[in-house]
Structure formats: C-alpha cells, structure tokens
C-alpha cells in the first residue's frame, strides 16, 4: 500500500510514469471507454458513481487512463492535501490557449482532481472532483471515495470527513475536512454566475508531458508559457511577486469583479493594480468580525494590523478566508504574505508595482 501511495502522490513517480500515460490513444479498449465516457457526460441524470466516467484503469485512482496530467506552478491551498490533476479530452479534439491565457477546453472535456494525503488512508484519495464541459456549459461535481476504495459516490450536498495528517512542518493535524457541495463548487468556479475552470491558465499550467506529446492535446502548445512564479520558490520572483501569485490562485477566483466576492471591491488577480482595491489601506466593507478590530485589509508595513492576514490565520466561520475549502491554517502561505506586507513602506504607496 505504501508503494501505491508513493505512485499516487509523488510527482517524481508520476513524471516517470508519464511517458506511457500521456500519449493519446493506444489504450486497451479505448473506443468503448470513450463511448461510455461520452454517455456519462451527456446523461441527463448525473452518474451516482465515479466509475461511470471510465477515468481510471481498474477504477484505481493511481492509474488514470490516457490523459493529460498536469500540475500548477502555484496551487490553491486545500488543507495541505496533495492533488492529482489530469484532463481527458474527447477523441480527436484538442484544447486551445486563448490570447488572454485562458485554456479553452472542447466540449466533452473532463478536468479531474483527486485530493489525498500521503499518510491518510495510505495515500488513497478522499475525494475526486470533476469539472465536466457539457454542451450547455461546465458542471462541477464532487465524488467521495467509498470506504472500500473501489469507487467514489456523488455527494451533491458535500460532507465533512475526519482526516488526520502531518503537515510539512511536522505538525500533526486532525481536521473535519470539508468536501464542497455542488453549490460551493460553483461559488469558487463562478464567473458572472456561470461555472468555469479556475486553476489551469497558461500562466500557471505545467503539463507533465514533453513537447511532442503536448501537440496531441493543444492546437497551440507554444502558447503555454508559465509566467507566474511558484509561490514557494524564491528563485522564481520577488516576495511581492510570489505573494501576488499566491493571492491570485487562492483568492482571485472570488475576488474579481465578476466573481462571488465582487461586492467586496477587493480584487486580487495577478493582473490587478496594487492599490486600494487590492486591499492597500482598504477599510472593511462587509467583513464583520473578519476585521479583527483593524482598520485596513492591508496596512503597509504593519502585518499585525492587516486583517487580510488575520482572516487567513483564523479557522472560524465568519472570520476565515477563504470562506469554503479551508480547515487548516496555511502557515507557509501566511508567512509569505506577512513578509510581503512587512516590506511595504508604511506610506501606502510602496505596494504599487
């Protein structure tokens, strides 16, 4: 079992496996698999079982069928969960990278993300989330793996699951991990009220495939230019740039003018200017207790008086940000933002790029 955990969750192992997995076609019984998958995608009734989508050989989450595996330079923090990501595309079709860096996946695509911890359930995932591109738009669905690990079951209403794991800093955690319900999926994946993928953008997307293999998945693979720094790699960028990458990935799916937090007036996309609407000396709008008694989301030079940090450092509903998907404080992410705010000249102008 430990070997399986390593295969599932260790990126190095995944990369080693990739040569065989990333190539399109050649899968045994590929045609019947693809037909079954197309039926599952188009079905008016949502499949109750994950196996209906024929995503894994032997329905073993460690063995995705022909797919494009990928990772992100800066990922969304989800309680230190390891995430295994891949895309399956309909036969003969490829994705396109738009001029603004959005990846346009063809109808019939499924983006698959499994969540697990190396030391929980022997590394077997707890849940697998699907983003399904149907003819009428994207649909986000959460599947929770059954106790016997042989299949996963649709959990439209979400669920809390007891998870125990050890964080990278050695701290043992026992949490009530929140699998989002279908609406909560949409809360984060919403743009002007419709569901869209948020993670895979050209600036942040790292395909686990070589250049030759990539042309089987993308019309214009050369446009995959990951420009956003890895948040935890000092060589990738300044503290400010890495902090902004972190905020983009962890916050901006809601905190943008068309997102779920549009009314806050706090906009944290990689492309947003660092001004009052980025939190610099921005007073609380509807923060309630989330203000922690402080005047500003970001008080330049003064992290202890910046309630943006206060909200990241708390777990209690009504204070914690993000509002869904976090039952653990991301110590390292918070430390990066703290360093960034501490570096800002107190004038309030220093945050500008």
């Amino acid at each position, binding site marked *: 079992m430990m070997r399986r955990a390593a295969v599932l969750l260790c990126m190095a192992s995944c990369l080693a496996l990739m040569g065989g997995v990333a190539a399109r076609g050649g899968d045994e019984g590929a045609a019947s698999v693809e037909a079954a998958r197309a039926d599952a995608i188009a079905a*008016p*009734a*949502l499949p*109750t079982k994950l196996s209906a989508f024929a995503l894994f050989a032997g329905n073993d989450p460690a063995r995705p069928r022909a797919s494009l595996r990928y990772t992100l330079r800066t990922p969304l923090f989800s309680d230190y969960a390891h995430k295994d990501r891949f895309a399956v595309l309909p036969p003969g079709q490829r994705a396109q990278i738009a001029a603004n860096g959005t990846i346009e996946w063809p109808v019939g695509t499924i983006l698959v993300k499994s969540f697990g911890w190396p030391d929980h359930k022997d590394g077997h995932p707890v849940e697998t989330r699907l983003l399904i591109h149907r003819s*009428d738009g994207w649909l986000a669905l959460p599947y929770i793996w059954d106790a016997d690990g042989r299949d996963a079951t*649709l959990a*439209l*209403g*979400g*669920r*809390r699951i007891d998870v125990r794991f050890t964080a990278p800093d050695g701290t043992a955690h026992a949490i*009530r991990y*929140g699998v989002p*319900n*279908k*609406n*909560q999926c*949409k*809360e984060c994946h*919403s743009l002007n*009220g419709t569901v869209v993928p948020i993670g895979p953008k050209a600036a942040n997307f790292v395909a686990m495939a070589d250049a030759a293999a990539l042309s089987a998945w993308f019309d214009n693979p050369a446009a995959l230019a990951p420009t956003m720094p890895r948040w935890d790699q000092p060589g990738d960028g300044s503290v400010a740039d890495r902090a902004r990458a972190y905020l983009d990935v962890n916050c901006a799916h809601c905190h943008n*003018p068309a997102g*779920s937090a*549009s*009314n806050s*007036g706090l906009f944290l996309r990689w492309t947003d200017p660092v*001004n*009052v*609407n980025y939190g610099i*000396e*921005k*007073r*609380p*709008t*509807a*923060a*309630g*207790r*989330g*203000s*922690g*008694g*402080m*005047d*500003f989301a970001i008080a330049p030079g003064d992290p202890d008086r910046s*309630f943006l940090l206060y909200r990241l450092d708390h777990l*209690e*509903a*009504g*204070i914690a940000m993000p*509002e*869904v998907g976090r*039952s653990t404080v991301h110590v390292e992410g918070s430390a990066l933002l703290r360093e960034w705010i501490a570096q800002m000249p107190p004038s309030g102008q220093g945050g500008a790029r």
Partner: protein
Amino acid sequence: MAGKMGWAAGAAFGMALVAAGPVEAKTIKVSPGEEGAAERLQEALIVAQPGDVVEMGAGTFTLVDGLSLDVANVTLRGAGAAEGGTVLDFSGQQGAGEGLLVTSDDVLLTDFAVINTRGDGIKSKGADRIVYYKLRVEWTGGPKETNGAYGIYPVESQDVLVDSVLVRGASDAGIYVGQSRNIIVRDSIAMENVAGIEIENSFSADVRDNLVTKNTGGILVFDLPSLPQQGGHSVRVFSNLVLGNMTPNFAPKGNIVASVPTGTGVLVMANRHVEIFDNVIEDHGTANVMIVGYRYEHKDPKYQPLPLQILVRDNLHGRAGFAPAMPGGAELAAAAGGSLPPVLWDGAGDAVVLDKVGALTLGLADLSKPQSAASPAPVDLSGGTVPPALPEIVLPASMEAKVR
C-alpha cells in the same frame, strides 16, 4: 408531512435528476427529525428545479455548514418563524461565511428562523427579485461583538423585498441592503443590532412601516468609497417607529458601523436625495436625525462623499440629544446647555429640515476637517430648496403576489 421525506428528496439519494427539461413543479419535503437531515436539506436545495418548493418541517435543523441555493424560482418554506416553527440552528457552524446563501433569481424565503450563524445570517447575492417574508434571524445570546455581521443581507440585486421579518443581535446591520436597486424594506422589526436597517450604496429604496428599536443606530443610509456600485441615491425612510436606539455600540472595530454613535435614530451619510418623513423618532441620546459627510481619508476620485438633497419633514420627535456619544459629544452638550437638539448636521453638503425642532450644525463644511474642529451652532435648515418628491417604489407584480 413532518417526519416523512418527499419522493423527490428521496430521489436525490439514488440518481440525481438534473436538467431533464421542463417538468411539473413539485414540493420537496425535508424533516428535521431524520437521520442526515442537514445533508438532505442541502441536497434538496441542489436538486430542486425552477418552480419547486422545498418545504421544511417543524423543528430544529442542526447545521455545521452553510446552506446554499442556486436554482431560480424556488421557494424555501418552513413551518413558521416563531416558536414551534422551523429553526435552522447554526450554533455549531464550522464553515461558510453565512447560514444560507442564495445566488439565483426569483426566490422566496419564508416561514423559518435562522439562529446563531457565525458570519452573516441569510445572504443573497446577484439574486434579482428576491423576497424575504416572515423570517426570523437572531443571535440568541443578545448583543455581542462575536455575533455575525448582517442578519438579512441582499447585495448586488435588482428588486429586493424584505417584508415582515424580525432580526435581532447582528453585530453590524440587522437588515442590510447593499449595492442594489429598487428595494422595499417594510413591516419588519429590527432590534438589538448595531444598525437596525441599513441601505448602503444602493439606488431607489423605500424603508417604511418598520419598528426599529434598541439598536445602536436605527436606520442608516450610507454610501462608501471603493466599491463596484456607489453613488447611493433616492431613498425614502417613512412611517417607521424609530424608538430608543440606545444599545452601546458592539460592532467589531474597523467596520464603518463601529463609528455610529450610540443613541442615533436615522443617520444619513454621503447620499443624494434622501427623504425622511412621517416617522416617530424618539429617545435617542445622540440625535433623532443625523446628516453627515464621509469624513475618512479615501483614494477614490469617483466617490461623492457629501450628503446632498436631504429632506426631513413631518416627523414626530421625542426626547433626543441627552447623551451625545460622538467624540466631543459631552462638551458639545455642555456648551449647548445640557443637551443637543434632535437634528444634527455636520455642515457638509445640504439638507432641508422642515420638522419644527431644533437643529445643530457642527460647521464642518470641509470634509478634511476632523470633528474636533467643530464650531457648533444652532441652525435653521427650513429655507433650502425642497427636492422634488421621490416616486413610490414599485416591485414586479410577481414579487407582491408571493406575499399576498
């Protein structure tokens, strides 16, 4: 009906029916007494189709996560908002920023109570034509800083009706309507909140026939900078009972309502064209009516910080100004002979006050001047130009039909 799950909720456990084309509207019944009731309630709100009613039985649902509804034209109905009705109890809430979140249009919420949410009570965002009717949102431990911020919280919506609700204990505003258009808040009770009713960054609202008592401030009409919708205007506050809003301010510091002086009846800050008339306003230690500019530093060139075209007429005033709680209030009162008159204006922008009561200006026409620079003086505000009367707010007939 209680204790028995409807067929549709049962279907949610087998095959979830979604988008199968137009079907006959149905009622999905969920009872609080059954195993997994909270999860089933959330599933019902997900599998509901437009036109459906999700009916909650009498009793208490114990919820650890926020509920949400994203299907248009759904009714969420309980067995009553009072004792013996349906209670959504969030005392042990572990996640989400509110108890119930609605993000779809044409929704009716009625006949249930939401208590002790960790964040906001009921929030609706981008939910046009929403109707809040016969609801109770309450923090049962009384006014506390640790209570959630807003009780009823529609935001970014076109056509909003809040009717016959009771909100109690919010550490910000009991009924808060933000960044919306065409709004009615009526026949409701807001008590023991920091702000009873607040209309913020919104266009065209009628706040009428409410009882607003024992809050810190009764009814607030605000506009704030650096938000997607600003330039709040065209708000009528009329025929309300605004009584004894003297609960010491318990808002978490930093929030704008933390600056509301205890004992304020109606407070207008930075709006254009607000009419305050036919209210009974009494027993406010600071002022029955206060009209001020936005006096904080801001960096928003598009923001209009002044109160403009404010009309105060035909209100019945009781006692006021006996314990002014703003900075320097005690000194002001002493200088004015022990207490302040019922109407207080900071001197910025313009207002017309036709009520036959005293008014005091702080003489701070310049918003960059702090309140400590005040040069208070009695003022007669009856001579200004009365703005043209605002029209009554009319909501779509489909909304009014839901409360008839």
